[in-house]
């Protein structure tokens, strides 16, 4: 139905335009013909005078030079002087521009339609010139016929074309819908064909595919986070259950106490995991900008180094702090402290000595780093290590939330910078860049 209306809406104005143009072209040619006759006769009139005009008319009629084919010259009283009409048509004023009248040409039985033009000559004579336009009428009829035919042809063609276009669009839409259904069913691997189907559809397919790519990534991330969180909560929960059962089963007060303490340790561990997760999300969401303060980053590194040095020494490692005497900075001291502490904690747990803490100014940024001399992280695993819960497999069994790097990254980004993992040859070097004047952003 739509394609029918569409083809009519498109075809009819086109046909009307064609009709109008053809018709006015024809009209122009008719007028031109009569105008030529007029010019020729007026030339004769001006050279030969009033007496020469009838002769010129008769000659032109005889030789067929009169292109319009109709001429009549009458005197003041309306008597015919020359021409091929028997009498001056009544009701026709002189002079007059174009009018269309039916006239009997001399020697003709049926009247014909003529386009007529009249002139008053200075002598008082009147001249009529005209041409048959039955030809034009026939042409008009033929044109209308042809155009109606074209319209009748255009409608089914339009319908078929519309239907074909509709089918193609429908097939593409069905392909999109198909992929969408698959994805709704949980299979994220499907993608649209970006090669076939013309530029517009390729563009659409590419955009949808990019969106799907992102969604798949996010879902994958979320799944990993929930899986890991579940995994990390399951072990303390299992241990807690065992300890509770043991506490309930034994009579010995001392051993009961021990089991319950183990339970409370596990609870603490889970609470830490949850609060670290929450802290990261709120830092990622930009919380903490309200609590920026002025402080000395070098002093902060010194503090963290001092807090962790005894435990590092217990494990045979040294913490060395290398920073300028004072590095004034405005930022969230608590979250930066926590991030650095996490990195040092990681270095002690997973890395090896010596552990180096450092800070230096670098243009608009201040760089903080925590480097260790352990095994490091292979280049291809570094991006993976930055993700939430992405404890690398070999360290999965060790205690820890796997959130240290993710938190450090969130904190660096809160301060307009980022995190970078580098090779310390040997060991890992975690570099945090913090933008100066971040509070002005």
């Amino acid at each position, binding site marked *: 139905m739509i394609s029918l209306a569409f083809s009519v809406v498109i075809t009819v104005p086109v046909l009307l335009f064609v009709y109008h143009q053809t018709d006015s072209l024809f009209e122009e040619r008719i007028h031109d013909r009569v105008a030529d006759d007029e010019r020729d006769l007026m030339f004769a009139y001006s050279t030969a005078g009033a007496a020469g005009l009838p002769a010129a008319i008769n000659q032109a009629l005889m030789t067929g030079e009169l292109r319009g084919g109709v001429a009549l010259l009458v005197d003041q009283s309306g008597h015919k002087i020359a021409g091929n009409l028997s009498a001056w048509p009544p009701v026709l004023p002189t002079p007059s521009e174009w009018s269309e009248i039916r006239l009997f040409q001399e020697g003709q039985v049926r009247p014909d339609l003529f386009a007529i033009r009249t002139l008053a000559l200075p002598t008082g004579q009147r001249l009529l010139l005209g041409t048959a336009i039955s030809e034009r009428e026939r042409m008009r009829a033929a044109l209308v016929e042809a155009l109606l035919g074209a319209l009748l042809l255009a409608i089914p063609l339009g319908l078929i074309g519309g239907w074909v276009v509709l089918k193609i669009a429908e097939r593409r839409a069905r392909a999109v819908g198909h992929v969408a259904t698959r994805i709704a069913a949980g299979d994220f691997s499907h993608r649209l064909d970006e090669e076939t189907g013309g530029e517009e559809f390729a563009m659409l397919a590419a955009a949808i595919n990019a969106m799907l790519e992102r969604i798949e990534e996010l879902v994958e991330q979320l799944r990993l986070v929930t899986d890991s969180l579940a995994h990390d909560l399951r072990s303390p929960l299992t241990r807690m259950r065992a300890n509770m059962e043991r506490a309930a089963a034994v009579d010995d007060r001392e051993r009961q*106490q021990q089991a319950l*303490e183990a339970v*409370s*340790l596990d609870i603490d561990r889970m*609470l*830490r995991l949850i*609060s670290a997760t*929450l*802290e990261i999300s*709120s830092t990622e969401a930009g*919380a*903490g900008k*309200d*609590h920026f303060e002025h402080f000395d980053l070098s002093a902060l590194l010194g*503090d963290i180094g*001092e*807090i*962790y040095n*005894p*435990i590092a020494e*217990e494990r045979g490692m040294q913490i060395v702090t290398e920073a300028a005497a004072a590095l004034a900075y405005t930022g*969230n001291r*608590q*979250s930066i*402290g*926590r991030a650095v*502490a996490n990195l040092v*904690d990681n270095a*002690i*747990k997973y890395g090896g000595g010596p552990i180096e803490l450092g800070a230096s100014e670098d243009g608009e940024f201040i760089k903080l780093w925590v480097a260790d001399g352990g095994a490091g992280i292979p280049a291809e695993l570094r991006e993976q290590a930055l993700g939430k819960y992405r404890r690398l497999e070999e360290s999965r069994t060790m205690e820890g939330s796997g959130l240290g790097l993710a938190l450090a990254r969130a904190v660096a980004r809160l301060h307009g910078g980022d995190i970078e993992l580098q090779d310390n040859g040997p060991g890992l070097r975690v570099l945090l860049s913090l933008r100066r004047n971040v509070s002005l952003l």
Partner: protein
Amino acid sequence: MTKKILVVEDDGTTADYVAKGFEQNGYVVDIASNGRDGLFHATDGNYAAIVLDRMLPGMDGLAVLGAVRAAGIDTPVIVLSALGSTDERVKGLKSGSDDYLAKPFAFSELLARVEALQRRGPSGAQPIVTALRCSDLAMDLLARRVERGGARVDLQPREFRLLELLLRNKGQVVTRTMMLEEVWDYHFDPGTNVIDVHISRLRKKIDEGGREPLLHTVRGVGYMLSESA
């Protein structure tokens, strides 16, 4: 005289848990289950400390705190909140609370903090102390000197601060997070037994050589300095 504690907490289970804990430690506890009652009690009663939940029906905990302080009541207030992040903590402390504890918490941690608050006295009115003592352990705050049985003990500046904190809270439990907060001014949970190592170093310095141990471990809670366990 028995000490009174006001607990402003809308969650019945938590309120009972906290009240029972304080009662077992010799306190009398009043419970208010919403902000308005809490404010009413606070302006009326003579409490040793107020335990105030951050999120209350009717009136926000921090608004209650503001009203209490505006009424000129300087009873120590410890804010409890499920909003555990560092920033929430700063907000709580800025609005006039004396301490802040994230939910969920161990009662022992709350008790240790409430007792430390009372020792410190009304907010802003710290008594000036120049010497602290526990048995034969003496600290001279002006000369920054520590002696055990008359013999000088050499301490690092932080060890000195740590010991000062323990001495100020003599006979009371000081938790690990309290130490990190008071000595280093960081409010995160260090996770590994970082603080324990500092304590064991301090213990080596003050308790070594077969002397009567003063620095005791309170299992699952923290540490306490006292003459006898």
